[in-house]
């Protein structure tokens, strides 16, 4: 099994001008690429923080984090993003374009891909997530669930090797949750694993091969199902 992430003795605190909130004193764990891992824990237990550390968005005070064997200190956010797709807890923060179609196409356009190829990939991904009929809409005016699916589509279109989803089911109805479930299953068959941060027990039960439970910045439980 290939390791996607390795955290070794990571320490992290948030600092602002008024106070320091201690999050992780010393946390270590590995995440493997071809299985589904669920990260659970109460509100404020540090789930989002740990995913941000893994994606290189925030930097550990001590310790090291490796992504596919490379230390993230030596990687740019762009390099990490090419390998791992990250769905924010608040997907509004990761939508930039003026149309749904452009939301998926602009990265490929910047990378200089062929127009025909872009069109094929974008249409396919939009259809996969049941968004094709909205392709000319403005992302800003979409509903919460539509935004969440669009953010997911914009990640999938880049063909990541692994996915990190921070509470992906919060705004989805039963039908759309089923679509997400099918995508996770399908990717898994292609050996693309997922880290799911969630409070949705049913969803976790259905997918997770391994469940890691965080509480107050420590791993209190790590079991395989």
């Amino acid at each position: 099994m290939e390791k996607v992430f390795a955290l070794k003795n990571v320490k992290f605190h948030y600092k602002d001008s008024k106070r320091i909130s201690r999050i992780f004193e010393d946390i270590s764990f590995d995440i493997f690429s071809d299985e589904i891992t669920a990260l659970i824990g109460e509100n404020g237990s540090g789930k989002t923080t740990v995913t941000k550390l893994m994606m290189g968005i925030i930097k550990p005070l001590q310790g090291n984090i490796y992504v596919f064997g490379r230390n993230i200190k030596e990687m740019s956010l762009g390099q990490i993003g090419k390998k791992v797709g990250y769905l924010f807890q608040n997907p509004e923060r990761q939508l930039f374009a003026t149309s749904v179609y452009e939301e998926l196409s602009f990265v490929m356009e910047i990378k200089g891909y062929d127009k025909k190829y872009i069109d094929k990939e974008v249409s396919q991904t939009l259809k996969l997530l049941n968004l094709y009929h909205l392709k000319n809409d403005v992302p800003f005016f979409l509903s919460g669930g539509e935004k969440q699916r669009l953010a997911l589509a914009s990640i999938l279109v880049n063909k990541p090797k692994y996915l990190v989803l921070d509470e992906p089911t919060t705004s989805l109805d039963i039908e759309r949750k089923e679509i997400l479930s099918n995508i996770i299953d399908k990717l898994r068959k292609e050996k693309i694993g997922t880290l799911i941060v969630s409070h949705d027990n049913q969803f976790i039960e259905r997918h997770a091969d391994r469940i890691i439970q965080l509480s107050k910045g420590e791993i209190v439980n790590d079991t395989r199902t």
Partner: protein
Amino acid sequence: MIQELDARTKIIIVLVLSTWAIFFRNIQILLLVLLVSICISIFLKCDLKGVMYKTKKLFKIMIIIALVQSIFTKEGQAIFIINGFPILTYEGLVKTVEFILRVAIIVVSASIVVTSNYREIVQGLVQWKVPYEIAFMVSVAIRFMPIFSQELKDVVTAIQLRGIEIKKIPLGKKIKVYSYLFMPIVSSVIIKTKELSMAMEMKAFGAYPQRTSYMVIQMKKIDYIVISISVLCLLSSIFLYLI
């Protein structure tokens, strides 16, 4: 003692500095104004470092915009020529430097007001007979500034996480990437304004014409002195410049 200037005094200082920044078109003078702003900000123990750090990304974008602008300025003596086309002219370069200095002055002087408590700002302005609605909006704008710079940082992060290596792509495409900052920032402004106005209406903001306040802030002697000096400086500098 001087570190505890009234919020209004700080606003006056900022107004004077930014008037200079907009008014003068001379690099030496702008540089001088920048130095003065930095000195004041350090003297008043403002979080200059923090503000600089938070606006680092904004500065990068500004510099790129300014450089592009200078490339398209065609008048003036050419410094750098490719195939007979003047790429960079003396005129263009001067404009760019001016622009960057102006932005720097405004950012540094903004650090002076950000340190004030927003309640004090509103109260101070109201006591000066500024309508409460306007005073409130001013304070909201000041209070949201740090939030917006944080959001701008988040957006740049999110764009990079799409697999874009900003450092490696050519300038033309870089500008396109930066143009994608616009949408999330505008939408966040719209959302915040909407939420705020809704919250205010629910708390019956503006329902009664007369507002009462527990807090009364008093300007001290030092405030009057500093304000007089600032205004005098502004007037005399403009007068000297015009003759």
